[in-house]
C-alpha cells in the first residue's frame, strides 16, 4: 500500500445478545480525519456498534479494521481508539488533572511527567484553572471537557463519543458541539459520535450514518442524506420532510418546498393546524387519501395571506423536488 491507512472499517460486524440481533452484519468505511455521526432512534444498534469499536462489547461476527489491522479482538487500550462516555465516567475520587493523567499512570509514567502531559491536555480544553478540583465541583460542560481531555491524552486515532451532549442543557449543548467540531479539525483525527438528535448530526457531521433496526439505512455526507433520503424511515427521522404516497409510489418532499396557495391550485387540501415557529410558520394540511402534509412557509409570506384551520387551500410543489423513496 502506498499510503499509511488510518481508516476505520467495519466488515459485516454483527452483535447478538442471545437470540436478539442488536447489530446485523453492517459494513461501513469511516473516512480518515472525518467527523461521523451514528444517528438513529434508541435501540437501533448505534451504541452497540460504538461499544464494539471501543472494545467494551465483544464482536459476535465480522471484523473491525483500523489502520489496516483487525482490532476486534484487542483490549480497548490497545486499539488506538478512546471512548468518551455518556455520563463522562470521571473518577469522583481523583482531581481533574489526575483524571486526565489516569491512563499515563496505568502505563507507569512517573508523576511529574504525566502531570505535565495532563496539564497540556487541560490547556487544550481550556481548564487549566480547574486542575486541582474534584469532578463534582465542576459544571456539566466542564466535566465534559475533562472527559474529552482524558480520552485524548492516549493520542487515539479515533475518538468515540457516546451521546456526549445528552447530559447538557440545550443552550450548552449547542456551544459544546461547536467546540467538539473545532477540536476535531485542530487534531485531525476521526471522531465517531453517537446521537439520536438529527439536528446534532447535521450540525456536526461530515458523514451521517443513519441506523435503524440493527442495520445502516443510509450513509453519506450530511447534506446528501438530508436532501436525498433513500427510505421512508430516513426521510421521517431526519425531519423536515413530507412523505407522500402518489400513484407512482412514495416520495419525500421537503416541507419548505411545499407552498400554500389559493384553492384550485395544485393539490386540494384542508388546513388542520398552524404552528408559529419564529422564522417560519408550519401549516399542516390534509389532502386526499387522509395524508397529512406540512408546508413550511416563511413567516412574512404567511402573514401577508394568513390561513386558519379549516380553510381550503391548494398545496403547490415543483415535481423536480419530489424525491422517490425505495422503501
Amino acid at each position, binding site marked *: 500500500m502506498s499510503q499509511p491507512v488510518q481508516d476505520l472499517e467495519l466488515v459485516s460486524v454483527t452483535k447478538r445478545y442471545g437470540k436478539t440481533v442488536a447489530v446485523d452484519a453492517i459494513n461501513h468505511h469511516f473516512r480518515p480525519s472525518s467527523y461521523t455521526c451514528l444517528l438513529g432512534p434508541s435501540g437501533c444498534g448505534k451504541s452497540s456498534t460504538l461499544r464494539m469499536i471501543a472494545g467494551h462489547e465483544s464482536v459476535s461476527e465480522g471484523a473491525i479494521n483500523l489502520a489496516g489491522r483487525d482490532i476486534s479482538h484487542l483490549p480497548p487500550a490497545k486499539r488506538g481508539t478512546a471512548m468518551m462516555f455518556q455520563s463522562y*465516567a470521571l473518577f469522583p475520587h481523583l482531581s481533574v488533572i489526575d483524571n486526565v493523567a489516569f491512563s499515563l499512570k496505568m502505563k507507569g509514567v512517573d508523576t511529574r511527567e504525566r502531570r505535565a502531559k495532563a496539564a497540556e491536555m487541560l490547556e487544550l480544553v481550556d481548564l487549566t484553572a480547574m486542575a486541582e478540583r474534584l469532578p463534582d465541583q465542576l459544571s456539566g460542560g466542564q466535566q465534559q471537557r475533562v472527559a474529552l481531555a482524558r480520552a485524548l491524552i492516549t493520542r487515539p486515532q479515533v475518538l468515540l463519543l457516546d451521546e456526549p451532549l445528552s447530559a447538557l442543557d440545550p443552550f450548552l449543548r449547542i456551544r459544546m458541539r461547536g467546540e467538539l467540531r473545532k477540536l476535531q479539525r485542530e487534531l485531525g483525527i476521526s471522531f465517531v459520535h453517537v446521537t439520536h438528535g438529527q439536528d446534532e448530526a447535521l450540525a456536526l457531521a461530515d458523514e451521517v450514518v443513519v441506523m435503524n433496526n440493527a442495520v445502516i439505512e443510509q450513509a453519506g455526507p450530511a447534506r446528501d442524506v438530508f436532501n436525498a433520503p433513500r427510505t421512508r424511515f430516513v426521510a421521517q427521522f431526519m425531519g423536515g420532510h413530507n412523505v407522500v404516497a402518489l400513484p407512482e409510489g412514495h416520495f419525500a418532499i421537503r416541507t419548505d418546498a411545499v407552498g400554500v396557495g389559493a384553492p384550485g391550485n395544485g393539490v386540494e387540501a384542508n388546513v388542520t393546524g398552524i404552528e408559529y415557529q419564529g422564522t417560519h410558520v408550519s401549516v399542516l394540511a390534509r389532502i386526499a387519501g387522509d395524508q397529512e402534509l406540512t408546508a413550511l412557509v416563511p413567516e412574512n409570506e404567511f402573514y401577508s395571506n394568513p390561513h386558519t384551520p379549516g380553510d381550503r387551500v391548494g398545496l403547490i410543489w415543483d415535481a423536480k423536488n419530489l424525491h422517490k423513496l425505495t422503501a
Partner: protein
Amino acid sequence: MQMGRMRAGAVAWLQAAPMALVLLVFLVAPIVMIAIVSFWRATEFSIIPAFEFDNYEFLFGSPVTYRVFLNTFKYALITWAFTFVIGFTVAYFLAFHVRTLTWQIALFLLCTIPFWTSNIIRMISWIPFLGRNGIANSALISWGVIDEPLDWLLFSDFAVILAFVHLYTLFMVVPIFNTMMRIDKSLIEAARDAGANGVQILWNVIVPLCKPGIMIGSIFVITLVMGDFITVRFMSGSQSANVGRLISNDIALLQYPSAAATAVVLLGTVLIVIAIMLRFVDIRKEL
C-alpha cells in the same frame, strides 16, 4: 413576628424531644452513671459513694491492665485484618462477578443465614469441631497430615480469632458491598479504556471508592471485638484475657467501681481509635 419565630423554635425542640429523651435515658444516663460509679470507693464488703481516683490509680498502676489492653488490641487488629480481606473479597465477588441482581440478593442472603442463630451457639459449635478429639483433628490424622492431635486448635488465641472472624465478617461484607454496588459500572469501563488491568482497576478505582464502606465495616468489627468478653472466655478456655473479661471478672466479684473505671478507660480507648480512623476517611456521605 417574634412570637412566630419563638413558636417555630419550640416546635422544633418538641419534634426532637422524643429521640433526645430516648438517647438521654438509655445512652447518656447509663454512661454518666458508670462514670460516677468509677470514682466511688469499694472495699471487700462495701461500696461507698465518693470522689476519689483510687480505682484509676489501681488500674493504671497494675501491669495486668497494660497486658490485657495490649491483648485486646492484638485481637482487634488480627480480626480486623482477616475480616477485611475476607469481607472485601466476598463483597467484590457479589458486586462485580455475580451478574444478575437476583443472584446477588440470593447469595447475599446466603451469607446472612448463620446469623439466624445466636452468637453463642455459633461460637460453641466450634468446640466439638476443634477439640482434641474433634472433627478437625481426627480428619487431619486420618489423612495422615499429622500424627498427634493439635493442641492449639481449641482454647487458644487461634480459636478466639477464628471465632471472631466467623462472627464478624458479615459486618465487613455488608457496608463494603453497599458502597461497591453504588460504583458506576462505566467507571470500570473508563478505567479499562485507559489501559488499566484488573489489579490496577481494583487498586486505583474500586478500593478508593469503597473506602467509606471499608471504614464503616472496620468500625463495626473493631468496636465489637474490643467490647467482647464472652468469645474470649469460651474460645480461650479462660486462658486469655481481654478488657471485657477484666470488667466481667470485677462484676463477678461485685467490684462495681473498679469495673466502672475499666469500662470508662475502654470506652475512651475505643473512641480514640474511631476518631483516628475517621481522620482518614470521610464517611458522612455514606450515612
